[in-house]
């Protein structure tokens, strides 16, 4: 049985492409809306993103500086400071809002870098095989085996703490996992009959990789990317907590660090310790839910299969 598509008169190849893209996007959006978890995750992320990006408009960054602090020392949450104050009297809520910028920025950039590098390496290794694959895979194995945190600490220690260094350190320690995944997926995709058909049609390496392999890799890559964002945010928090972060900026990790140094545990200042942790948890969870929903939406196997043997 054929699909009952209402046939618009498509006069040119470009019109066909536009129509297809529009239909595909509409379909994807519709399917995503059906994933309740994904919608929740996306909502959380939108709220967080809005709060973060609009921060300069509804808060005053100047209040982050210790000299401008107006609150008492380690005050519990009250009417004026919803999440209480830290040891210098600054609003914790303000720090959380502004800390989101750094954490998210570092997390997303590091993840994008890691996934791009990993995908490139995995794709090339799988497609070309031979000594290229051998070389790239040995490199990957090396990076997998390397203890991530130790390498990150070493890098930051050598290059000095700054946002760029942290991004680089996190990316370098997490690209290898994606590379392995992408390589095995690519090998399985390249074994499929439509790659053989593309070759028979005369397709070169670039066409095969960009038109066939990469689109089929996207679900895996996107899912991996969202997980990477989550783990990058956690890594950033860990590094900042250890004092390796950018000391001039507020980030969730260094809020935790200062909380420890200020003796928040012994003084029972839970409002200092919990918010950063909860914030990290929320964002990581939201990314993971979105990632899983995206994977479901983009996976062609979820499309209904029809008869014919």
């Amino acid at each position, binding site marked *: *049985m054929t699909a009952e598509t209402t046939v618009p008169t498509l006069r040119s190849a470009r019109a066909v492409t536009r129509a297809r893209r529009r239909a595909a996007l509409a379909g994807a959006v519709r399917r995503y809306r059906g994933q309740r978890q994904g919608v929740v995750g996306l909502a959380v992320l939108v709220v967080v993103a809005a709060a973060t990006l609009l921060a300069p408009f509804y808060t005053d960054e100047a209040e982050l500086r210790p000299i401008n602090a107006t609150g008492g020392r380690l005050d519990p949450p009250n009417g004026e400071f919803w999440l209480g104050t830290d040891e210098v009297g600054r609003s914790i809520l303000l720090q959380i809002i502004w800390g989101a910028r750094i954490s998210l920025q570092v997390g997303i950039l590091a993840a994008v870098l890691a996934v791009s590098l990993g995908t490139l390496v995995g794709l090339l290794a799988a497609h070309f095989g031979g000594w290229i694959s051998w070389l790239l895979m040995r490199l990957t194995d090396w990076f997998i085996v390397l203890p991530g945190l130790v390498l990150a600490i070493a890098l930051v220690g050598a290059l000095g703490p700054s946002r760029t260094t942290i991004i680089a350190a996190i990316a370098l320690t997490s690209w290898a996992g994606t590379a392995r995944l992408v390589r095995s997926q690519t090998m399985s995709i390249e074994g499929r009959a439509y790659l053989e058909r593309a070759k028979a049609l005369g397709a070169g390496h670039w066409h095969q990789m960009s038109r066939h392999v990469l689109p089929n890799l996207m679900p895996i890559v996107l899912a991996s990317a969202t997980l990477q964002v989550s783990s990058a945010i956690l890594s950033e928090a860990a590094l900042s907590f250890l004092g390796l972060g950018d000391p001039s900026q507020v980030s969730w990790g260094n809020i935790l660090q200062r909380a420890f140094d200020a003796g928040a545990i012994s003084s029972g200042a839970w409002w200092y310790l919990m918010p950063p942790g909860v914030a990290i948890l929320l964002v990581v969870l939201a990314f993971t839910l979105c990632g899983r929903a995206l994977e479901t939406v983009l996976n062609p196997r979820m499309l*209904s299969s029809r*008869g*014919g*043997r």
Partner: protein
Amino acid sequence: MTAALEIDELAVTYRGSRGEIPAVRGVSLRLDAGETLGLAGESGCGKSTVAAAVLRLLPPGTHVSGRILVGGDDVLAMAPAALRAVRWAGASIVFQGAMHALNPVHRVARQIAEPLLVHGTAAKGDAERRAIELMEQVGLPAWRARSYPHQLSGGQRQRVMIAMALACSPQVIIADEATTALDVMIQAQVLTLIKRLVAERGIALVMISHDLSVLAATCSRLAVMYAGRIVEHGPSGDVFATPQHPYTKALSDAFPTVGDPAERRNPRGLAGDPPDPTALPGGCPFHPRCPVALESCATSPVELRGGDDRQAACVLVEPVRPRPRQPEGA
């Protein structure tokens, strides 16, 4: 005499995420010991569902009605314990794609012996011996007993499946596309083997395939299924040589007779595709594809009609009226 296998108005409806799927819509057939029946049809016609229904291997939640009698006992009404006894000892199935039906981490002799152990027919050492006997009967050398499935070829794996099906000496064997994936020569070997074993042991055999010519050559009777129903049945030679239902004719056309000049450069096929069970055409479900459809075919479905021995569900088939007894001396 009790039939080895009797199916009476079997109807099977799957409950899927997309709603109800009526896979089988009223199938009746009867097989005595030693008889062979070929069940022909294409994807979606319900033939594999019928096979699975005999051993109640359908997914939970499937709605089944009708009766299936194996050696006189209704499988569909049985308690689980009785059903377990019937499975494999009353009726067994040879599946297609032995590669997937065999456990890759167990040696083949152990897999053949498994039904014997499960049914308590034999103790462990005894079961292994019987498994080796069965292997020899299906033409596998005894030293293969300790091989793993991946070490065997396609034809050899299918023989293992047959040995497994014979293990508990069932009354009925159902071969579901058992030779479809094999090369023609291996297929010929396996079919010869099946015919010999069935004749020697007096087993009732139901052979399921889409290849009408193979069924006509192997089985004595032939039944053709379309859209969940039997649309023609009769002695296999007659049904194959002079099909009455247009679908049977199309199916037999799909396998041309090599050597017949009329088939040279003359491939014949049907337009359209086998129907989707959830969206069957009204009236006779075959009418959209039928080359000789009448107007009435779109609205009125037809039951099987014809003689006792040979029937087809087509309005163009004349129902045979029973001849009046001739008075003596006339």
